[in-house]
Structures are given as C-alpha cells and as structure tokens.
C-alpha cells in the first residue's frame, strides 16, 4: 500500500511551486509516498499479477503467449516479480496522488525509465530556470531536501507519459511542458 507522507520540508517547497510568467501560470507539486511491502492494495496487485505473470501450469505455449509473457518493460522483463512490483508501486502511487483517476489499466510502455538521476536533475533545473524560477532550487534547496527523504544516489527515475486526452494534469487551459513534470523517484528499499 502506498501512503502519502506529510513532509513539512516538501510543503515549503510546494508553496514556492506556483508562480506566473508573462505567458503562463505554473503550478507544481512534490509529494512523497512510502511503499510498504505488505500488499494492502491487494486488488490492484492481484490484477497486475494475473495480467503479466507467467504461470507454467495454466498457460499454453503458443507463440503469442510467450511473447506476452516476455514483455520487456521499462522495469525489466515482466515475468520477473521485481519488475511487476515496480509497476505496481508506480501505479498505486499514481492512484494515491490523483484520487479521481484509476491508473490500473495503464500499460507499462507508458512509462519511461530515465537514464540517470543527474540528467533528470539537470533537466528539471533547466526547465525551472527557463521559466524564471531559481528559488526552488537555490533558496529552498529542492534537491537537498529530496536527498534527505529519498537517497537520490539510490534512485531510479521514471516518467509517466499519459495518452493525449487522458492526462490528469491536462485539464482545460493547461499546457503540458515536459513529461518530466510527472515523474516518480523510486527508491527500492528491499534491494537485496
């Protein structure tokens, strides 16, 4: 189950995360969710397991089936439990962050794994500076705060790219700048 974490340091940043330029109004949020390995969101978990897992006993060996079972996703091959778990946590986090939406049917290929955390940091910084805001990074120390909550060095970053009409941030009047706005930093606590 993912749980929203109350982080005063993030709330300070979130208050700074809304400003206007000559062309547009920018609003953003940074939120932290914890992923407990107790699968409380059982329904979603079961749904994903049955969709992607390879069950030797019941499946046939037809070419289509084998193809589905070896789907390579941004999280790794989906017949591995660890990959499915990453997908599960990401979908559960999206569900928790956007309560009016249900992301259970989102396909793994709508996510993309970012090459490195440093590149993401650079890209976000560039976007923010270009929109005229350096306080979030320099004064409010966005990355230092994030590093304290999740260890950035240990993180995988994924971007969610929704279908055109179906974007929770894409309500009327908004211009979606970059998919980076919709990213999750995922620290794998149970890395053995």
């Amino acid at each position, binding site marked *: 189950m993912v749980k929203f974490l109350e982080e005063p340091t993030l709330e300070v940043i979130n208050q700074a995360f809304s400003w206007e330029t000559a062309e547009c109004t920018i609003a953003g949020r940074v939120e932290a969710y914890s992923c407990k390995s107790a699968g409380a969101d059982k329904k979603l978990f079961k749904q994903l397991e049955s969709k992607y897992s390879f069950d030797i006993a019941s499946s046939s060996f037809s070419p289509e089936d084998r193809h589905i079972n070896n789907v390579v996703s941004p999280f790794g091959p989906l017949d591995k439990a660890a990959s499915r778990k990453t997908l599960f946590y990401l979908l559960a986090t999206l569900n928790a962050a956007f309560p*009016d939406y249900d992301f259970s049917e*989102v396909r793994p290929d709508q996510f993309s794994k970012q090459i490195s955390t440093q590149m993401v940091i650079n890209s976000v910084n560039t976007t923010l500076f270009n929109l005229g805001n350096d306080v979030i990074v320099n004064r409010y120390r966005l990355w230092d705060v994030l590093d304290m909550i999740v260890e950035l060095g240990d993180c995988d970053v994924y971007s969610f790219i929704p279908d055109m009409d179906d974007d929770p941030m894409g309500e009327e009047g908004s211009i979606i700048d970059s998919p980076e706005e919709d990213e999750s930093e995922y620290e794998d606590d149970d890395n053995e």
Partner: protein
Amino acid sequence: MATIKREPDAGTSIPNGRSGGSNVTVPTELNDIERLIYTTVAEYQDGLPVTDLVPKIPSLSQEDILENVNALSKKSLLEFQMIGIATYVRIIELKDYQKTSSLDSDSKLIYNWIRDSGSEGIWTKDLKKHTNLHINVVNRVLKALEHKQLVKSVKHVKWPTRRIYMLYDVTPSSEVTGGAWYTDQELDTDFIETLAVTCYKYIYSRSFPRDKSIIYRAGYDHYPSAAEVKRFIQEKRISSVELTIQDINCLLDLLVHDDMIEKLMPFGMSMEEMDDDEDSKGDSIEWVYKVIDRTIISPVATKTPIDALSEVPCGTCPVFKFCTEDGPISPFNCQYYQKWLDF
C-alpha cells in the same frame, strides 16, 4: 434534506406518458390523500412545481396538499428539487425507495447525483464538486454502494483513467463505450475497414452496368442510398453488432472523404426542393452514392485535369496589363489566341 440544484428547463410540467400513475407501484401504507398526491406527481417523470399541485387536485385544500407532501417527503417517497427559482417535487419510485431508504444523507446525495447522470455516468471529481463532500467520504460511500450493487464503475473510451460511476443496472451510452466502432475500449480499425470495403464493393456493383464498355445515362436513378447499403450489410451478417443508419453514414462519409465514392443528390431533385432551414441538415434528402471511376478513358481526360483559366492564353500572357479592346495590343490581334485556336 439534501436538495439537488438543476438548471431550469424550457418546458413546463407536462405529463410524461404515464397516465394516472398506472405504471407506478404505489406504496401500500399510504392514506387516501397521500395516495392521490403520489399518483398525481407520478404522472410527471421530471417532477412538477409544488405550486402546480393545487390546481391539479381541486378536491384538496392547499393546506392538505402541503401537509401531505411534507409527510411523503419525510417517508422518502417524494423529493424536492430546485429548478430555477421554483421548487419541484418528484416521486421516488418504490424500487428506488427500497434501495435508498436505508442510506444516510451523504450516500443518498451521491446516489441521486449518480442516478441523474443516467447512461453517461458521473466523474468522481464532478461528484465532489456538486456534493461538496471530501474525497474520502465520497470514496467510502462509493465503496459501500458498489458493495450493495447499487452503482458500478465504468470506463469511458475518451478518458480511460477517469473514475466514472453510474447506477448498477444502467447500460452505458455509446458515448462511453465508443459505440459500434470500439471493442474493449479500442478503436476496431480492422472491423471498420472490413465494413468500409464491403460498402464500397456493394456500391461498385450498383454503380456500373454489367457491360463495362458503357456507363449509366445521366438520369439513372438507381444508385444505392444509405438505407440500401445498410440493408445489404445486415443481410450479409458481417457485423455481430447492430449498426444504426448513423453508423452506415459514418462509413459512407469515410469513403467519400477517401475519394472512393461520391455523394449525389437523387436525380430529379431540384435545388428549390432543398430545405432552406439550416437545422434540417438535408436529413430529408436521401442521398445516393456512386463509385468514382477513374478508369474511364476519354479524349479529353487523357490529359491531366486542368484549370480552364490557365488554359486560356490570357492566363500566361506577358502583356496582359496592356491589352485593351482598342489599343495596339488587343484581343483581336493577339498572336497567342491565334496559336491557341489554330488547331
């Protein structure tokens, strides 16, 4: 008691099909006056203004009517609704009543909004906005209503991730499911293509005579209409889903836009017969369809299609601006015309 605010309707209260409430099951534990009021209100599917009840039931005094309307409302058999500035009253049918009488006020409010969304369903975000309830309350109520099988969640083909709910036994509208062209939330392009090809082949078979060296005369009036195409498709049983005439029109428009067929006015119909009224949109005209045949060879058509204006020498004349009827350069002594007409 929670009331629902709605935009005023253009019409006034008109009985809607049910006469004397005969199709409505009247709850048994009502007294005569309550029964009379209940059956009167039952005639109006969308309710009627409370003030209209007085003239409709002349046998009762205004006080009696109001007192019993309130009594029925307390029993959850009538509900009030603000439409514009008037207070409307509407019956709660017995089957609804049984389902909803055990609900608390928040649940009833949410249930009513879902019920009123009909076959389109309502998004949780809108539900929150209209009821002013916190998302946690809404979620709790929705979970309970789903458990009681009173509501269900549906996927809208336009916004597959939105959480949309409708009443349990309502069939989602074709807006939600995508209609004939969507299977499992995805556009069934193979299906559309198969159908379009079939339509084309049928129209082709009706566009030209068996003998391919001739074509139909100008006044030929047996090109197929949309209705005939529909009948053909149905007889061939190609589609497992029922296709409406609008669906067929969609397919035919597709073929027209792909330049495969042309849409013709039935021969003999003059321009005067066309309705001037914008709203009719030519609904009364039964358009017919013919395949555009590009294989016809004619002496003129061997050349690529040309624009008449550029064929006339004036179109490319270098001294066009100086050319006048009575000047040194005029159409009468034009050498380009001489050349062009010298065939």
